[in-house]
């Protein structure tokens, strides 16, 4: 075993570092939808122009044609610079893009993939519904074929960036007669189509990163279907396995930074006894050290996972282990921060604020829910990693 990077990879890391240092955005990320769209797309475009967009994507679609390891190096250096998450571009780069690449036709690939990489468009997801949360396959948003179009009626929920997106990866029910897993279709919706209505959802953290999306006779060309009609479930499963694969690298590097920030904060912030710094408290010190150890182990798991993926090509159910461990740690570290801030926790903050521990704590509750609850991840691990009976 080794952690060695090839000369080429080391050089790659240096190039990433140099380029990021020169080109990273100087302004902080706006908080309004229009501002976010402009900011995220501009930054994606800058990455594209610098040759850094889609590092591990094939060159034929404008990607770098490099390995997951180089992608990892990019994410590490990227997060180490304290750069914001790829947020609005996340679905395009990590869900829709890879899915179209794997299951789309040539026309779809050549149209969409370069636009995603170049920062021309923002994508959003349209999977969950109010009555279909963990039980995604029970979705009811209905699409009827009318000539060369699908006509969509129904409702989606938990759509991030819906307000500023151009396209949506949308799951609709095109057949009601078979099992619930059959009869689902994965289709690309143009978010500017008439009949789409978007309403933001305010979260307990105070932000509104999610929306409900309503569809009233929304007409989508049949040519936008990815895979076959009624075959969307297997397409969706490949989408989700991407999410649980490499996409977490940046998150976990960022979590490591949160722990280091919290350690620094504990040196300066007075502890529970009102006299000594928080870090002098035995309980807090040990919880900080345990967080450090756990976050390190998350990184090691990620490395092992990437080594697996590089040999087998798909992330597989191991991604659920990373997701679960990550969610548990986020919540544990956020709760520790609340104990460290003590009565200062009465003051609200946003997770976007520097040392916004209260906002970060409220936000942490989403981590064991969004993208598949921790209960669902435990089912997946139990059944697909360990082979326990259903």
């Amino acid at each position: 075993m080794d952690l060695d990077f090839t000369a080429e990879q080391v050089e790659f890391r240096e190039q990433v570092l140099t380029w990021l240092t020169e080109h990273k955005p100087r302004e902080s990320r706006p908080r309004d939808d229009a501002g976010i769209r402009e900011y995220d797309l501009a930054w994606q475009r800058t990455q594209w122009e610098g040759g850094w967009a889609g590092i591990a994507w094939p060159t034929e679609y404008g990607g770098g044609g490099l390995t997951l390891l180089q992608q990892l190096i990019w994410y590490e250096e990227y997060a180490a610079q304290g750069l914001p998450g790829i947020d609005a571009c996340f679905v395009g780069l990590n869900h829709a893009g890879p899915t179209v690449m794997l299951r789309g036709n040539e026309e779809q690939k050549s149209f969409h993939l370069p636009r995603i990489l170049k920062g021309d468009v923002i994508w959003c997801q349209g999977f969950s519904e109010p009555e279909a949360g963990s039980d995604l396959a029970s979705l009811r948003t209905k699409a009827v074929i009318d000539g060369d179009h699908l006509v969509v009626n129904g409702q989606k929920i938990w759509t991030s960036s819906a307000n500023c997106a151009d396209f949506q990866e949308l799951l609709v029910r095109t057949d009601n007669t078979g099992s619930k897993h059959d009869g689902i279709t994965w289709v690309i919706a143009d978010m500017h189509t008439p009949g789409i209505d978007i309403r933001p959802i305010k979260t307990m953290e105070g932000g509104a990163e999610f929306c409900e999306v309503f569809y009233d006779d929304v007409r989508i060309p049949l040519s936008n279907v990815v895979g076959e009609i009624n075959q969307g479930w297997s397409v969706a499963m490949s989408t989700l396995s991407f999410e649980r694969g490499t996409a977490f690298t940046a998150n976990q590097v960022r979590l490591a930074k949160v722990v280091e920030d919290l350690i620094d904060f504990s040196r300066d912030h007075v502890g529970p006894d009102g006299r000594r710094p928080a870090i002098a408290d035995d309980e807090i010190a040990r919880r900080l050290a345990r967080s450090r150890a756990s976050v390190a182990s998350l990184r090691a798991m990620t490395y092992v996972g990437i080594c697996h993926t590089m040999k087998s090509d798909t992330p597989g159910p191991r991604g659920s282990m990373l997701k679960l461990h990550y969610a548990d740690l986020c919540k544990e570290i956020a709760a520790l921060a609340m104990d460290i801030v003590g009565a200062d926790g009465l003051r609200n903050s946003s997770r976007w604020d520097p040392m916004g521990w209260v906002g970060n704590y409220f936000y942490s509750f989403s981590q064991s829910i969004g993208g598949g609850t921790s209960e669902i991840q435990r089912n997946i691990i139990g059944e697909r990693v360990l082979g326990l009976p259903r």
Partner: protein
Amino acid sequence: MDLLPSEDQRDLIAAATDFLESRMPIEGIRARDGQPSAVDRDAWLEGAELGLLTLGLPEEYGGSGRLLDDEALLFATLAEHLATGPFLTSSLAARVAAQCGDLDLVGRISDGSVLVGLAELRGDGSIGPEGIKGTFDLIDCAGVSHVLLVTELGAAIVDLDEFPDVETLDSSDPGIRLATSTVTAATVRHWLPSGTDPIWLRATVLSAAGLAGLANAVTRLATEHAKLRVQFGRPIGVHQAIKHACADMAVASDAAMSQTLFAAVCVQSGRQDALFHALAAKTVASRAAIANAGATIQVHGGMGYTYEHNAHLYLKRAHVISHLFGEPTQVLADLLEQGAPQ
């Protein structure tokens, strides 16, 4: 020995519940978002008329003269419905004013025309009969005229005007209002030493009651959701991940409520280990309220993470109450210093 609510007490809970559901619905917290005060003044006056602020006040001062376990049940009920406004501090202040002979203030608190907020000392400073000094968090002091301060040694009532340069802060709990003020010297209107009446001890028991009420309410919320929410063709409550989470919540909130009522009875009967049990109640109730509220968010999935759902309001209230009348770590340290209970 009897630790079950009497018929009288069940009536009290039912009356308070009726009032809160109809006149102080939780929705009001969101409706008053961004307004200077979290309190609906009309509802407050009605609550005062109903006697919600004077349940434990001796009859000679116009109160109902009920015992601390009645008050504990009331404050649990108020918390279960996330009642807004400084109920606890106003009640305690009426008690302080009564024993300091300020019958005028007692009357005005009792009829709801005067509200009393809470000030908590943050960092160094002092609170005593001669005055107060330091930086204070002002909790639910928007629109009040008086402020209560509670220490282990005694309780003080100070005029809000004595707090200079009050700076409004964004509160983590949308149902309370938060501000801060730094006092170099301020006059204390009334001081009641704990030897005369242990206000701090009562505050500890009644805040434990609030926390136990929160723990209870979210357990019910999660359980009801688990019965009704269908996924994979069955209510989610059939799955052990959900069922066992609800069972753990039920145990935690039952333990919290039992210990709180036990502590209330210990205090009112003057048992030697009353302080032990009050501190234990605050500890188990804090943990139950925070853990159960977090688990309730999880049981509700995405819905539980929205601002529109009530789960987060319970979580946030739990955190706030856990920091009143003594930091959690201080409560633990005090508890460990006690002798073994009877």
